[in-house]
């Protein structure tokens, strides 16, 4: 199958384009917070781009924690059939 026959969404040049759009959108939602002032309940929840950092860091943390837990609790998927 040559590149032209593939769906436009899976062609490498378009995937690169999608990444650029995604990064631009990320930048926009961070910058959009500049003129806004939310109610602060905990001191740091209205820090600039707190939600962006918190969302990224906690998700990386959850993936790593799941990976760690998987080392102990993962079994092949026929485990209960044997």
């Amino acid at each position, binding site marked *: 199958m040559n590149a032209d026959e593939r769906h436009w969404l899976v062609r490498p040049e378009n995937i690169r384009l999608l990444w650029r759009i995604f990064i631009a959108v990320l930048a926009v939602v961070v910058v959009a917070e500049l003129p*806004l002032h939310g109610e602060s309940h905990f001191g740091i*929840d209205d820090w600039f781009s707190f*939600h962006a950092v918190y969302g990224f860091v906690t998700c990386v943390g959850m993936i790593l924690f799941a990976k760690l837990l998987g080392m102990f609790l993962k*079994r092949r998927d026929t*485990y209960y059939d044997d």
Partner: protein
Amino acid sequence: MIESFPPGLVLIAGAALLPLARGRARDLLVLGLPVLTLILVWAIPDGAPLHAQFLGWELSPVRADALSRLFGTVFSLMAFAGGLYALRQASTLELTAALAYAGSAIGAVFAGDLVTLFVFWELMAIGSALVIWSAGTSTAYAAGMRYLGIHLLGGVVLMIGVIAYVHATGNPTFDELTHDGMGRWLILAGFLVNAGAPPLTAWLPDAYPEASPSGTVFLSAFTTKTAVYVLLRGFPGETVLVFVGLYMACYGIIYALLENDMRRILSYSIINQVGFMVTGIGIGTPLALNGAASHAFAHIIYKALLLMSAGSVFHQTGKRKCTDLGGLFQSMPITTICGTIGALAISAFPLTSGFVTKTMINSAAAEQHLTIAWFILVAATAGVFLHAGIKFPWFVFFQKDSGLRPPDPPRNMRYAMYIFAFLCIAIGLYPAPLYAILPFPVDYHAYTAFHVVTELQLLLFAGLAFFLMLPWMQRTLTITLDFDWFYRALGPRLAYAGTRAWDGTAAFLSRGTRKAGRGAFGWIQRHHGVHGVLARSWPTGSMVLWVGVLLAAYLVFYYV
């Protein structure tokens, strides 16, 4: 008359007629009964119009207020869309069981007393087990047995609790359960079993994905959300529920991240979402309770939509593992779009139903200054996007090309997805009608600029984490051990070891007694047997000899 008719009974009685109906009559029953039920749900005025006596207690089989009407409404909608989705593909057994199951759930949310609630509670367990079994596979049979075992156990705990509670208070009315004692805690435990709370979380991802494509859709809606309803009614503001809910929210994410089966991913995510609701109930302010109730309403719709799209993939390909799927967006565009709308709604993306409901719970935690709860809820909001919002559509519809090119599913399945996809967006764009039927007056504005921007930051950066760590997310042919290991692996192993030990002991004992018996018998035989010293016969001559000896001795003694 119509104002006091128990709305749940319409579906239960109609389910009994379904096996007799054919063709158009069958379609009319499956689609018409939920509509009739919805009309009845809204025809009942506030209050308890029916009364009955049972063992000297005053029962109210029907009681209506905003909360029961809210759940009755979404259950009727669910029965309709689920019936449409199942109409051409599901067996009559499954449809009958599903309608009776939906009717029992509606009966439970309109039950005015604990006894009626218990009856419908048990009917739900039976109906849902039948829905699982009607998939007809051996794995479904085994999973259904485990499912029923857990739910009947939960039912027994609930019954003991109800008896203890009514005995202590003398009043079976089901309102907030304030009388502290054993009964209250046992009722709470019975309710939590159905919510999928720890430690008995595993029944849900174990059983639901074994049902048919439509069966899983029905199952996702009623049992856990009836549990949310009874917790809202009986235990608002119960602090324990905050911790239980936060645990469930995190548990669902971590296990879903490790899972490979697409419908098990979505099952874990049910526990995660119910965790948000349970936390809201534990917080207990009007905003939090409204959030929990409205989130249950929105959740039923988007979760059913997600499972409809996953069920469509399973129906069209016969495959259910992420490792076997991928690239399906090319030939199943409708399923991809509907599944993605469901995924955005569950992630609480702005303009979808999840955003206008879930953020109420998070805001309630912030307003109460529950620091730990708020930070966990916000992290879990990001985590939902990770495990359900991106992971499910990415691995099923995109990622590598599996080479599969199945078409979109049949018409009735597509129409059901259209209805729920429409509702996910409609509620998100215009939440006022939903807010109007919540139990408390709503003074909440989801669409402030700060809310929208921070939510987008949270979700999009969670998405960034997903794609940057994609190599870590690749699926493997594995499952993750859970609490069910205790009754699926440890229990049988202990039972096997116990049988072996017993067999060994029995063999040892029987060998020992046989040996001892043989020894004792041999000793007796030696002395008393046919040839034994004490039993053998003696010749006459020897007796004469001994008599002669005795007489001689007598003579000797006589002369001396």
